[in-house]
């Protein structure tokens, strides 16, 4: 079930959901929508380096550091936005930190990040394959951004760039669910 603006605010005030800067806000005003909350673009844009041919291998040790070393970070501001060229892929993140705590005595929630129609009309994708924010996650939301239009697009920090939909999780997400028993790769329990 998708939470309404009122239910989102209620979950925040009960401590069952965290979305920075929203506690005590008016749920009938921005950044609330009826069934979502708009989130803002943060101040960093990461651009993968293209200076050498390489094949990414997620099984390789140290892959997380490797990805860091092979990207360039741009800090953006009102005076210095990032120009997202057509056909270009970058990573951004939300300004707001969110948290979906696993509480045994409270309702658990998960989320989905979706684009906004305003950016969609300009050909901007803010995610294309990983919208789910699973129960138990804490942090800012990483955005996979691509410009599919024929024009460049300016990215400013603080612009409302995506919307977060919050959903109830039925039951407590315990470990070792049946479908994972005995499975070690690629997404099961590793013994």
């Amino acid at each position, binding site marked *: 079930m998708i939470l309404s603006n009122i239910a989102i605010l209620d979950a925040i005030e009960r401590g069952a959901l965290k979305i920075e800067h929203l506690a005590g806000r008016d749920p009938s005003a921005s950044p609330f929508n009826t069934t979502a909350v708009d989130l803002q673009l943060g101040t960093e844009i*990461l651009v993968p380096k293209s200076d050498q041919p390489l094949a990414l291998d997620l099984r390789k040790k140290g892959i997380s550091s490797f990805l860091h070393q092979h990207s360039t970070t741009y800090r953006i501001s009102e005076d210095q936005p990032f120009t997202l060229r057509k056909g270009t892929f970058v990573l951004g993140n939300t300004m707001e930190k969110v948290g979906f705590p696993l509480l045994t005595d409270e309702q658990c929630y998960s989320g989905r990040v979706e684009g906004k129609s305003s950016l969609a009309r300009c050909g901007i994708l803010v995610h294309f394959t990983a919208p789910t924010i699973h129960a138990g996650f804490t*942090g800012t939301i990483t955005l996979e951004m691509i410009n599919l239009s024929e024009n460049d697009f300016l990215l400013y920090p603080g612009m409302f760039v995506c919307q977060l939909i919050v959903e109830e999780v039925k039951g407590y997400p315990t*470990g070792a669910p049946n479908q994972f028993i005995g499975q070690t790769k690629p997404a099961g329990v590793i013994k």
Partner: protein
Amino acid sequence: MKMGAQVWIPCRISEGMFSNEYAVEIPLPSGEVLSLYVDKSLVRGSGDNGELLVSVVDSGLHEGERTVLLPGESLQGPRWIRLPERDLASA
């Protein structure tokens, strides 16, 4: 440690892609290593002596081992991992 408890597990910490995150690597008893990016608030220590805050998500069904849930998806896929109970430190 009851289900839902927050515990620290050993990890190796390095710089993340964004300034508000770290990259962490978790060595598993099998010899495999899982890596993921996590918010800085979920990590303590540094370098090879780091610790990552995770949730216990089983009720102690496996003697000497506990299943914990990583705070985000690992680059290798799994989010549930089973670790020796002695590697878990109460938060």
